[in-house]
């Protein structure tokens, strides 16, 4: 590949990585607080729809962002209610949220706009446009989020408590901190970050919503979270790597690589999942989830 081609692929890698990073950091906040979340995909999808719908109705991208964040936050709190207050199965709840979002966005979209589930095309101020080095505000916010996540998770009292809620909630409760509140904060931050990723997809990257437009990005983010061993800085690099793989897959469609021959696009697309399985199995390194994640915390009386 020539130099400018490499620059193009790198650029599109960053753009494809941004929503992954949002969802991955979202999962990180939730799972480090002890709540497993496989509903990242559904929350992103709901935010993508709510964001594009609000942006097209109001003509303002900011309103779209707010609507997207609210939709995703609501689903995040629903997950929190099921997992924290009802001690429900967190996998089941995440699955339910994915299904509800997949169905509801397509159903409501079709009934509301009458375009087969799409929202009208967004133009001008209804969309986030590049402001700095070809990056729009959401990309910049996303990169900021990664550093802020690291800062708050490791350097603040709240971060320490959140990590404790995910590793040893009983000890945290003994120290006089409410595990319930910390975990609710975790799922709320998770909801907001998923919302950011979803709005990015429909209001920044694309000019509107398409049914099922997340197309598994929430699950790649989940894979990235495991691959990054639930740590923020590795999450940044993993998401960039997975975004880059996606960009390469798009670029290589029908191209033959000298020396390698024809590389099937599907092989590159499957690579994040395969790499995660290998890492999770401990063949290369070891990915160990937060110790108390997935286990409902029942306060002793």
């Amino acid at each position, binding site marked *: 590949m020539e130099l400018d081609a490499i620059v193009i692929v790198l650029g599109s890698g960053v753009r494809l990585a941004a929503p992954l990073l949002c969802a991955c950091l979202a999962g990180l906040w939730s799972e480090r607080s002890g709540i497993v979340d496989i509903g990242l995909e559904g929350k992103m999808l709901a935010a993508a729809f709510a964001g594009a719908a609000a942006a097209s109705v109001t003509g303002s991208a900011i309103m779209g962002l707010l609507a997207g964040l609210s939709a995703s936050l609501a689903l995040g709190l629903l997950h929190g209610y099921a997992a924290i*207050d009802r001690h429900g199965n967190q*996998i089941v709840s995440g699955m339910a949220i994915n299904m*509800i979002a997949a*169905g509801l966005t397509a159903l409501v979209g079709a009934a509301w706009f009458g375009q087969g589930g799409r929202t009208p095309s967004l133009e001008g101020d209804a969309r986030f446009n590049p402001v700095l080095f070809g990056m729009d505000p959401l990309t910049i916010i996303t990169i900021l989020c990664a550093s802020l996540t690291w800062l708050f998770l490791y350097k603040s009292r709240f971060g320490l408590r959140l990590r404790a809620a995910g590793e040893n909630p009983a000890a945290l409760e003994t120290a006089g901190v409410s595990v319930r509140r910390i975990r609710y904060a975790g799922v709320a931050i998770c909801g907001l970050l998923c919302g950011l990723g979803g709005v990015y997809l429909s209001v920044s990257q694309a000019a509107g919503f398409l049914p099922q437009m997340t197309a598994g990005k929430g699950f790649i983010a989940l894979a990235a979270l495991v691959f990054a061993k639930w740590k923020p800085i590795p999450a940044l690099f993993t998401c960039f790597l997975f975004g880059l793989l996606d960009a390469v897959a798009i670029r290589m469609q029908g191209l033959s690589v000298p020396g390698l021959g024809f590389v099937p696009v599907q092989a590159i697309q499957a690579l994040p999942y395969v790499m995660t399985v290998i890492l999770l199995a401990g063949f290369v390194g070891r990915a160990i989830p937060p110790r108390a994640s997935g286990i409902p915390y029942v306060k002793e009386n």
Partner: protein
Amino acid sequence: MRAAKLPVWADLTLVPLANVVAAFFVSGLVVLAIGENPFNAMRVLISGSLGSLEGISFTLYYATNFIFTGLSVALAYRAGLFNIGAEGQAYLAGLGAALVCLSLPGLPAIILLPLAIVAAGVFGAIWAMIPGWLQAKRGSHIVITTIMFNWIATSLMAWLLVNSMRAPGSMQPETKSFPPAALMPKFDGILSLFGIAVPSSPLNVSFLLALIAAAFVWLLVWRTRLGYEIRTLGANASAADYAGIGTTRVIVITMGLSGMLAGGLAVNEVLGVQNRLLLEFTSGYGFVGIAVALMGRAHPVGVVLASLLFGMLYQGGAELAFDQPRITRDMIVVIQGLVVLFAGALEGMFRTPIAAVLGLFRRTDEPDSRSA
């Protein structure tokens, strides 16, 4: 905050009923919100699925898929394993069936069909046993691994169907048609042999296989040594270990059987209806299995009943989308999600109110505290 203690009969009837009613109540609100009449929608749904012989056949055809995938999820659930991979396992099972049908075209149906079914089962089993083995031996979480395996299956099958298995000269990512001997006998065809005319439908012998599979799962779980080991593992993994149960063996075998059951979806769709392998033939039916297993409380009888309900939803939903175009088929996915939410994640929510109501029979004039 512990869930209230209920009599067994209430636990098996009232609790699931309250959960399903809640799911349908919220679905009704959704229908209302998009500006349609929920009662009218319900009427179309029921008459579309049960109002005619054709409707009933389609309902049973959809139910076949859900019995297989529901049993798959339920069996693994009994062993404490959450198999989210039925979708991918069924997809791979389709590959197994297709390879047999395409490579042995000359065989008579009586040999070819059983071979194809076995191949489907084996392929589904292998795709489930790898995550099982990884969980048992390497400690990787089965939920994450089966999710990953779904996506790997999607890529693998897309690659095979686009590149190596596509019918020559065709632009569609699908194989050529299998020999006619590879088609599962359909009910309309069988009944017409006896002079009984029924409307044409995709309902085929796979439905009977699904019922046999349900009986098999019941026998396995409650009447065999392996079933005892599965239930012990599901109830308390470390106790199972202390009791000398080879947990690795039980996990891998259970996942194998679970994947095999998921393969039934491929038998119904690929061998029963499509007669060729095509892209995304599983169309989310594997995930419906999760809803069905939760609603049926991981019991074969419950799974069959829940499958019939979901069969009605799918068939009735198709009629509904035709009758009232504003309510697209996505409505079914919403209902499905709500069922998973209420019957699964919020399963205990109505226990306390139900216990309170049952307690009322001894006391007087307290108001009904149930909200849904």
